[in-house]
């Protein structure tokens, strides 16, 4: 069996002391940012990107991956204990988790969240290992036309899954595509929309934009929301960590459903952990015998979204490792990390860098194990961290972000650009434009343009190439069908329902 040989090889790599350490650091930092509201995974990974310069590539990627799935754990802890979702992915966990904590069942809620995440993580790890090789083979059949269509599909997914108006989401994607064209043209080297500013000649750094739109904009927004966020801390001691048999019986199927849903949504481009947790919660509510229990401390309402977000966080590595297409913003930063170390993500990575791919996959399983072991005892510390008032936390985040951006290129202009994008992000929030599709547009822009140009060059400017090649036609057909479905009133109301759940 190739699969087991590969996994075994991966474990050998992942168990080297340096990689174990990197995994631990990543998981801990991830939990930390997951716990702290006001600093997200995207901003953290962007901030830590320069740190990985000095590390071996495998260790660097293991650490960054750890941050991503670690944050899913950390977010749930604060959602349950203090009703403050540290991450967007655990917003729905707070609905039932905090109610359980109020009823004195914080222990079981935390345990179920951890167990669900762990199970989901294990299954997702195996899934990556199984799907990796066949998808790589499929990727070899991909020409430029197919790549382009796949990215269109991904962007359409992002639109359908984004919150709010579909028209606005599409506009955000196109805006992102436009921003991605700033800088030198790939083929002719002509300077595009750079206004003779040398720092723009290389294009807008993705990390810079991400930090502005997700880091700085979030801080400004939090400040004007009236930072007197009263934190309704659950101060009582957490007793009785272990869930009862009834709890386990109720949550087992929910964990299974959440894992399945999360894995699927994670693989799809444009999806990711946030939407997975929302979808899983809605599904549980739909199929429950007594939906009114939800919002009042139903354990399924904790188990399903927590499993789903962890599964999605991990399976989103699949398109990156096999096709070289980042399905969401965090994965796009991983591309950045890989490029720093001279690795071009895509089908050839699996063959050329088996250490990296399998080491990272194995480390995910180890990381999940570490998280479950370190997290439950550390709950007290995480909760204490939350008492750091925001008035002290936000200037610290500003400084960390500024230093982080500066050190990517040692360019002060990057810091100013990130600030400008912070204001842009603030404006976007005020006008209810979602920043996530914008970022995906920036990420996929260069890849899309390159493949579009290549496809049209090969076909001698014949646009039918996108529908005459079967694989590409299928992808585009799915994209069109999705868009039509999303605009249809029936599905629209359902889609709105998913998101309003989080707001009540």
């Amino acid at each position, binding site marked *: 069996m190739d699969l087991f040989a590969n996994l075994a090889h991966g474990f050998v790599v992942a168990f080297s002391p340096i990689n174990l350490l990197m995994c631990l650091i990543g998981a801990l930092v991830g939990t930390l940012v997951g716990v702290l509201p006001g600093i997200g995974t995207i901003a953290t990974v962007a901030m830590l990107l*320069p*740190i990985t*310069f*000095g590390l071996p590539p495998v260790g660097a990627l293991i650490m960054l991956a750890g941050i991503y799935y670690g944050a899913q754990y950390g977010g749930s802890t604060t959602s349950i204990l203090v009703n403050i979702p540290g991450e967007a992915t655990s917003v729905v966990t707070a609905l039932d988790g905090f109610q359980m904590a109020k009823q004195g069942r914080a222990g079981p809620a935390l345990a179920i969240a951890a167990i669900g995440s762990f199970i989901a993580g294990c299954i997702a790890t195996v899934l990556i290992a199984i799907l990796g090789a066949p998808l790589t083979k499929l990727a070899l059949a991909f020409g430029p036309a197919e790549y382009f269509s796949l990215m269109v599909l991904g962007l359409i997914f992002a639109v359908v899954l984004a919150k709010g*108006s579909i*028209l*606005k989401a*599409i*506009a955000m994607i*196109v*805006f992102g*595509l*436009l921003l991605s*064209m700033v800088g030198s043209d790939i*083929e*002719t080297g*002509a300077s*595009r*929309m750079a*206004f003779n500013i040398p720092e723009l000649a290389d294009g807008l750094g993705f990390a810079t934009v991400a930090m502005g739109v997700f880091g700085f904009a979030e*801080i*400004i927004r939090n*400040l*004007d929301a009236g*930072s*007197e966020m009263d934190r309704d801390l659950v101060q009582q001691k957490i007793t009785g960590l272990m869930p009862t048999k009834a709890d386990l019986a109720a949550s087992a199927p929910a964990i299974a459903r959440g894992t399945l849903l999360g894995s699927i949504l994670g693989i799809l481009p444009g999806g990711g952990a946030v939407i997975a947790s929302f979808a899983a919660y809605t599904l549980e509510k739909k199929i429950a015998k007594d939906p009114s229990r939800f919002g009042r401390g139903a354990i399924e309402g904790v188990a399903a979204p927590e499993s789903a977000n962890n599964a999605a966080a991990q399976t989103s590595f699949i398109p990156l490792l096999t096709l070289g297409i980042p399905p969401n913003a965090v994965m796009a930063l991983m591309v950045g990390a890989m490029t720093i170390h001279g690795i071009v993500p895509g089908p050839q990575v699996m063959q050329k860098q088996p250490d990296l791919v399998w080491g990272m996959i194995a480390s995910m399983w180890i990381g999940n194990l570490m998280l479950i072991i370190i997290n439950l005892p550390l709950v007290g510390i995480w909760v204490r961290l939350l008492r750091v008032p*925001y*008035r*002290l936390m*936000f*200037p*610290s985040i*500003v*400084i*960390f972000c*500024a*230093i982080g951006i*500066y*050190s990517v290129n*040692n360019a*002060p202009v990057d*810091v*100013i650009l*990130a*600030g400008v994008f*912070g*204001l842009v992000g*603030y*404006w976007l929030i*005020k*006008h*209810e*434009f979602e920043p996530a599709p914008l970022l995906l547009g920036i990420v996929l822009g260069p890849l899309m*343009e390159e493949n*579009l*140009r290549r496809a*049209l*060059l090969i076909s*001698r*400017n014949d646009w039918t190439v996108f529908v005459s090649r079967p694989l590409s036609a299928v992808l585009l057909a799915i994209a069109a069908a999705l868009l039509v479905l999303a605009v249809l009133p029936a599905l629209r109301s359902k889609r709105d329902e998913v998101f309003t759940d989080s707001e009540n």
Partner: protein
Amino acid sequence: MAHIVDQAAASEIRNTRVALGICLLAIAPQIFEFIWSIGTLVGWGSARSPTVLVTSHAAALLVGAPAALAGAFAGGTRPTISQDTLLALIYSYPLLAVAVLTTFMTIRSAQDYIGGIVLMALALFALWASNDLQGMNGFSFGAGTAPRMFGGLLVALAAGIALSGLLHDGPALAHYSWRGPLFVMTSILIFALAIRPLGLLISGLTSFLVAALGTHETRWRETIIVGVVLTLGCALLFPYVLGLPMPIVPRWLAQ
């Protein structure tokens, strides 16, 4: 009755304000370039001098663009059009037209309407910025093909959003606060300008304290303590532990 009239009057006043805002947006690049050019007076940069700038933009807006438009309709031979005139044609004129239209409209969702217009302005600006790039070259895309394609698409989408702000009721303009954005942005700017000449210790602490002004809740004693500790921590962490090259102390001290 009087109530309704009042309401109509109120919305009219607001509409003229929105229209004026759009007019300002329509000449925003020119104003920005003017502010930028003031720097040349003290010898910074290599922009055009302010007086030249004002006359050439005014000429483009008032004479060049109408002449170019008339020329296009007359169908005569095309004279070469300057970039300033193109800016007026591609960017300013469409937005001024929108501003005029705005005064006749009832805006039902200011959030969508203004959001759409600003996005449209960005797209038009991108169209202008990429106008000098090469277009289709036989079978192959030129450097300018894709930016123009997506720029045009964005203009259409933004117009759609603005239109939906006229057709559907929706939220009004959200409230903006000035304190947070102002101080956080100033702090970022200070960091960016000071890191090279003054080093991490000074720029880090200064921008920490400036950022802390962003909320009225700040208590100075604890803020200063945290700021000093954090800056020292960063000065150890980034250059020494992580090995990132970064100036720590001011340049004149390091020499």
